[in-house]
């Protein structure tokens, strides 16, 4: 059963096309990452799923409901928008109570749910603090808690870790895993390529188009390329040798990373060895990063990704 099904979705802001023939599905119970840079179309897609914007072309169903039933959809999903959307002048507890009423949480159940959410967010000791006075990481935890107060079956999170430091990001992702463990499906967007590693499946999006949608393991193996890291006392000279032989050649501090197709890797390394004679260097194979892969999808002309 798919929690979200999107078929051939297009969206235009006047003449600017924000979404271009987007088709993807989110499977029940998974954490699905929508990975792409700023202005790739992530927010537009999520707002349509939440019923905040109409579908212009294409078909969208959420929890087996058609996007026209957006009032019903809205009551079954939790949505955390990109900008901090809570009331800064209300306390942590007041914000939670406000969202509980908004989503018709029975009065008798509200306090128990708040306790559950405190246990998980560790925000209880700050319950009296104004939301506006919380740190960035705590604001995100509160926003997540507010999105969970009505026990939604699907959680849609728009760049929840934007601008949050790595330690708070890690804590936030641990919370998402816990929510998933309770049976909730999660669609989360992020501009940070490394967060792809934390999702069950990811969709790569750029310029309004879905470039690929699969598990990271499958995306890596389909990619069919190896990444090597080279270092040498004279990096500039080595760079000159490597660049024409690689699909991508990038300087990272004291190292050069090159990407070469699996099929020709052994041959390319032999050629490199013959051309760098006399230059001291060392190299090793390293794991491909999401950025390496994303780049080749963005640049199919150069990279010839089938």
């Amino acid at each position: 059963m798919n929690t979200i099904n999107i078929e051939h979705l297009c969206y235009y802001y006047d003449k600017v096309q924000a979404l271009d023939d987007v088709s993807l599905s989110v499977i029940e119970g998974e954490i699905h990452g929508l990975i792409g840079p700023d202005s790739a179309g992530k927010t537009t897609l999520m707002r349509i799923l939440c019923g905040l914007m109409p579908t212009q072309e294409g078909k969208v169903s959420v929890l087996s409901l058609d996007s026209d039933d957006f009032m019903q959809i809205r009551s079954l999903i939790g949505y955390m928008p990109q900008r901090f959307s809570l009331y800064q002048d209300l306390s942590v507890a007041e914000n939670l109570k406000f969202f509980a009423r908004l989503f018709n949480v029975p009065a008798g159940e509200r306090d128990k749910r708040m306790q559950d959410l405190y246990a998980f967010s560790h925000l209880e000791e700050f319950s009296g603090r104004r939301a506006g006075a919380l740190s960035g990481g705590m604001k995100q935890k509160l926003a997540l808690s507010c999105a969970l107060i009505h026990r939604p079956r699907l959680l849609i999170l728009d760049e929840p870790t934007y601008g949050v430091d790595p330690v708070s990001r890690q804590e936030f992702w641990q919370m998402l895993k816990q929510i998933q463990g309770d049976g909730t499906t999660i669609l989360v967007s992020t501009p940070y390529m490394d967060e792809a590693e934390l999702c069950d499946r990811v969709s790569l999006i750029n310029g309004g188009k879905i470039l690929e949608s699969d598990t990271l393991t499958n995306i890596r193996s389909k990619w069919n390329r190896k990444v090597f890291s080279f270092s040498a006392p004279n990096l500039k000279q080595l760079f000159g040798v490597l660049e024409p032989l690689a699909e991508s050649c990038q300087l990272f501090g004291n190292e050069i990373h090159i990407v070469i197709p699996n099929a020709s890797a052994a041959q390319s390394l032999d050629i490199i060895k013959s051309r760098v004679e006399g230059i001291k260097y060392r190299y090793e194979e390293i794991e491909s990063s999401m950025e390496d892969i994303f780049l080749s999808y963005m640049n199919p002309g150069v990279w010839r990704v089938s």
Partner: protein
Amino acid sequence: MNAEYMIRTEDLTKVFGNFTAVDKMNIEIMPGQIFGFLGANGAGKTTAIRMLCGLLKPSSGKAMVAGYDVRVDSEAIKRKIGYMSQRFSLYDDLSIGENIRFYSGIYQVPYKVAMERAKDSLKMVGLDLSMKVMTGSLPLGFKQRLALVCALLHDPPLLILDEPTSGVDPMARRAFWNVINSLAEQGKTIIVSTHFMDEAEYCHRLIIMRSGSVLVDDSPRALKEKYGSRNMQELFLLLAGAVNE
């Protein structure tokens, strides 16, 4: 102190009341080096950098920047530094040309000289646009390149980048770093302050800070090898992960 260092600090310390924001920092940065300041929010990166820019007086210890003492010659130091942050360095309501003109005024560079330099820099960063284009209409990746052009108007030997490429697409990010690499090759010293570990990979050398202290100071490769970490993210969480709210 030896003049060949671009930056050298000795027990550089900043105390606010009873809170030690930077605790006995000892670092050495050479010309042409890309040097990273890493740490979670509140680790002391910004305070340390503000002292190095001459914006904040140290409580104790010493720092020499481009041959000047930060306690004595803070005005001279400010003219040696270009600063670029992706968040608030350009005015969206000004055109590209107006932003350049504004920054040439701030840095006290004659307009003609500034325009010549800007033209060269615009070429270097691959921005081929009319000076009349409004800054607000540019995509993020272009804004970052323009911000860099403005930070280079006074031809500073030291460039400070604050999370320069977070959120931009991977292609724009690599293009940006290629420019930074060639600036470093020309001898400019680059300081990168960030909590994005993919930016850390571009550094020759970096420090990781926690609670005002420098935990480690080495190249990304040496650090990954020493701590057996797969990538910088893992290493960072291992070392800096003990801070919590």
